[in-house]
């Protein structure tokens, strides 16, 4: 992964972005990446899944991780899939260890939280997590 940058707006290149840990930057970056994927011929369904995954994972980072540096995103287009690597220096956060939320069909019993990462796991083809050098590394793959 490239050396971290401090301002994603200087890097319109879709394939590596440094995203400041604030919600407006996160929301804009997720939307921009999806648009650029569509422009590169990625299906609307796959671009939407990447949009959703980046927004949910980075929103989580902003709210809970206490990351000091901007989150790094690297995107690779393979023939069959989009691979997105997300790296931050926040507290350990393994999305694979989150409990599956209760998706009760009863409105009164239904809890509001914990659904975002659960949906990400359902929408992507694969999701992997590693903690290396005090950094979280999340890799998602979405079929094109």
């Amino acid at each position, binding site marked *: 992964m490239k050396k971290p940058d401090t301002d994603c707006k200087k890097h319109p290149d879709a394939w590596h972005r440094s995203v400041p840990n604030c*919600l*407006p930057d*996160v*929301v804009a970056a997720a*939307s921009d990446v999806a648009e650029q994927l569509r422009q590169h011929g990625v299906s*609307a*369904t796959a671009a*939407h899944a990447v*949009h*959703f995954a980046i*927004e*949910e994972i980075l*929103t989580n980072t902003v709210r809970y991780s206490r990351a000091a540096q901007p989150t790094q995103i690297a995107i690779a287009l393979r023939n069959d899939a989009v691979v997105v690597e997300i790296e931050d220096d926040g507290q350990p956060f393994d999305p694979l260890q989150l409990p599956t939320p209760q*998706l*009760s*069909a009863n*409105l*009164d019993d*239904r809890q*509001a*939280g914990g*659904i*975002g990462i*659960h*949906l990400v796991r*359902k*929408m992507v083809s694969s999701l992997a997590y590693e903690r290396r050098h005090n950094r979280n590394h999340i890799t998602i793959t979405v079929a094109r």
Partner: protein
Amino acid sequence: MLDITHKPEPPGVTVALKGHLNAITAPELEQQLDTLLNSAHEYIVVDLGNVAFIASAGLRVFLACAKKAKRANRGLALCRLQPQVQQIFDLAGMTPLFLIHPTAEHAHTALRQRSASK
């Protein structure tokens, strides 16, 4: 990023959304829906026909609104969900929790009948 417009259609109101419903825009929508739930409108129809993206923050707003509407005995329906938005509702298991209609007219008709039968 999310335009929110209200169109009173007594005894209900249509709330039309345009844009992305995400962590930035969800709080404003929740505030406006709360205000409408405390108004004289008997029901709310939320038109999602121009919403291309919904994040979990948006789902939470609708879940909270549905609970508040139930407690206040007000009607709430959603309409014109685009395929990507419908997919999120389905994966979240939220589709059965809502009255979802293909058009605003269908939603108003259903809620008007519900309101009249109370």
